[in-house]
């Protein structure tokens, strides 16, 4: 059994790497056609994020946001709840943290924890809604979360434009947060670390969020695999009817799943406002919520794999930025590569089909008939 599990996992990893490789290859072929200097463009794309220290920082920052989003998505997708609400929850998280960071007159030691709690709470509260609607009123969570996303983004835009934006600013953004409202750098303020600390502070926005993200990964893993709630989630994901027959309160678990997922999406928003931008800007989420889906997907909804998939995915995004700045290929090509990766990784039939044929040939049998496609 264990050996089988191992080999399954190995196949899964092989499959993801194959998908990434094929997608990168397609990207390269496209680059050959459109670029004056395709080799240089692709080198910038593939090596860009590690070519300079500040670019390395950009990559890690981006990945931290993606990790939180990936955790948020994994929690609900594990239970086969297709909540796409991370985008809106992230906006509300950014907003709540931002408002606290800007205006609550507390010293840094209290203001930042409060802002973090605020961001998490905002995500939690917005997350309850689609879960409740699905569990008790049987409302399709895809539609309800898409609607809530737009509502949240409009409310964010409204509050920013009418109340938060400083009146004399020419563009729609808040003031830069005061130092008490910006997450401090992750290197502790010790005398022998001073050199490293200055380097990180000057070139990157890497903050204490790193520790929070690592903790989050462990918490979500523990929640998913070591608690009754996590057990319920996984059972609901594999067979909701069975979960019901087994006497589980599936409704409560579903509601809790979307709400807890919201916590991490909210914190991702906090990271955007209090570390990356250090102010509230219009369209702060910029579609990242949907990218979180990809991160969770590549990690197969396993929390322990999420840091890796977020780093990998963040690398593609960071590389795309470098490529755009240092070559004639636009960063949008990478979106196409990302899409191909998603399609290849999620296409359940591609690899099993190949494997089945090989096995069938080996066993010297005829190929068994494929089953009818279901819903």
């Amino acid at each position, binding site marked *: 059994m264990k050996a089988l599990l191992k080999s399954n996992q190995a196949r899964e990893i092989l499959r993801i790497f194959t998908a990434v490789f094929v997608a990168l290859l397609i990207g390269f072929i496209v680059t050959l056609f459109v670029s004056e200097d395709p080799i240089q463009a692709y080198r910038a794309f593939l090596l860009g994020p590690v070519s300079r220290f500040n670019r390395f920082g950009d990559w890690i920052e981006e990945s931290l946001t993606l990790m939180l989003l990936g955790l948020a998505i994994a929690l609900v997708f594990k239970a086969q709840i297709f909540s796409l609400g991370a985008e809106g929850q992230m906006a509300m998280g950014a907003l709540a943290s931002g408002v606290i960071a800007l205006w609550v007159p507390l010293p840094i030691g209290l203001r930042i924890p409060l802002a973090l709690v605020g961001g998490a709470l905002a995500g939690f509260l917005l997350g309850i809604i689609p879960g409740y609607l699905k569990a008790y009123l049987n409302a399709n969570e895809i*539609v309800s979360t898409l609607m809530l996303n*737009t509502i949240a983004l409009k*409310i964010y835009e409204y509050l920013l434009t009418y109340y938060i934006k400083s009146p004399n600013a020419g563009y729609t953004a808040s003031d830069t947060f005061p130092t008490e409202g910006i997450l401090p750098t992750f290197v502790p303020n010790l005398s022998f670390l001073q050199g490293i600390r200055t380097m990180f502070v000057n070139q990157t926005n890497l903050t204490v969020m790193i520790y929070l993200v690592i903790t989050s990964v462990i918490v979500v893993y523990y929640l998913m695999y070591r608690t009754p709630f996590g057990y319920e989630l996984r059972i609901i994901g594999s067979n909701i009817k069975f979960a019901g027959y087994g006497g589980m309160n599936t409704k409560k678990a579903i509601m809790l799943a979307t709400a807890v997922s919201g916590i991490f999406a909210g914190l991702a928003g906090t990271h955007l406002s209090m570390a990356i931008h250090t102010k509230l800007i219009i369209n702060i989420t910029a579609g990242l919520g949907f990218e979180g889906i990809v991160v969770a997907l590549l990690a197969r909804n396993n929390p322990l794999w999420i840091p890796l998939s977020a780093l990998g995915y963040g690398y593609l995004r960071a590389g795309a930025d470098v490529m755009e700045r240092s070559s004639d290929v636009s960063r*949008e090509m990478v979106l196409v590569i990302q899409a191909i990766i998603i*399609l290849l990784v999620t296409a359940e039939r591609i690899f099993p089909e190949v494997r089945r044929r090989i096995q069938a040939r080996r066993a010297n049998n005829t190929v068994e008939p494929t089953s009818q496609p279901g819903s």
Partner: protein
Amino acid sequence: MDITIVLRSIFSAVFLASVIRISTPLILPALGGLVSELAGATNIALEGMMLSGALAGVLVSAYTGSVWLGVLAGMLAGFAIAMVLAYFHLVLRTDAILAGVAINIMCSGGTIFLLYVLTGDKGNSASLVSGAVPNVTIPLIKDIPFIGTVLSGHNILTYLAFILAAVVSLFLYRTRFGAHLRAVGENPVAASSVGINVLRTRFVAFAISGVLAGLGGINLSMAYLTLFQRDMTAGRGFIALAAVFLGGRKPLGTLLAAVFFGFADALSNQLGSLKIPPQLVQTIPYFATIIALVVYNIKRQAEVAARARRFQEKHLAETAAAKAQS
């Protein structure tokens, strides 16, 4: 005083005409979303299909000089994207939602990429001279004072959208294939057991969905505006999907819901000039959709319960009758 201005502007002919105009790029993809929804697959890639249609239309009309070839290309682009989605979802068993997300990402990135390669501009296609689908004035009707302004002088695609709403309705409820399509969406196993080809039916549903979404994109880039802008759909594909649910998954309902969304959009433009925050007005249709979704499901649950009760009663009566006989 403000309220009278608002009311006067809402009931002005020009405003109502703008509602119809703004609704068109929602009606077309919403009809597409309805068809695939009824066949049992929520199509969240409408957005991507619209974008590809919009760009294909602009490019082909710019390079061939023919508006109608552009329209055809837009429909074909929507169709092609829909076939990619259908192949991955139906044959390779990719989850419809994830495949839809992927297609949207691909189309958003791909259209900008292609635009940049061809024009050197990532923002819009202003450097290309692309065609515009003409407007039509309806004889007779255009001379009626109020109604003439509201109904006449719209784009051909606007009239087409309303005609297609009727056509889709007839197709779904008055043709054999439409009945099959709905059966497949309702219960694929049962449909398959009576000899309906589930796979083929769903492929066709996706194809129709793609063509309609492509037309919606064409409407944006060759009628509403006459150029392509990056991400010019601005969430209309998702709004169209919402219209399907707000409309209770029925053709007329979907049409009305799409017009309602258009109305809210037009209203928020109007109110913006009166210093009423447009963002808040724009949220109204989304709240309405959530409410409609809930109401629809409560009604549906009640229906199912009633059907089960009727069945049980009938069953009890039959067993009682059988007992009485023996």
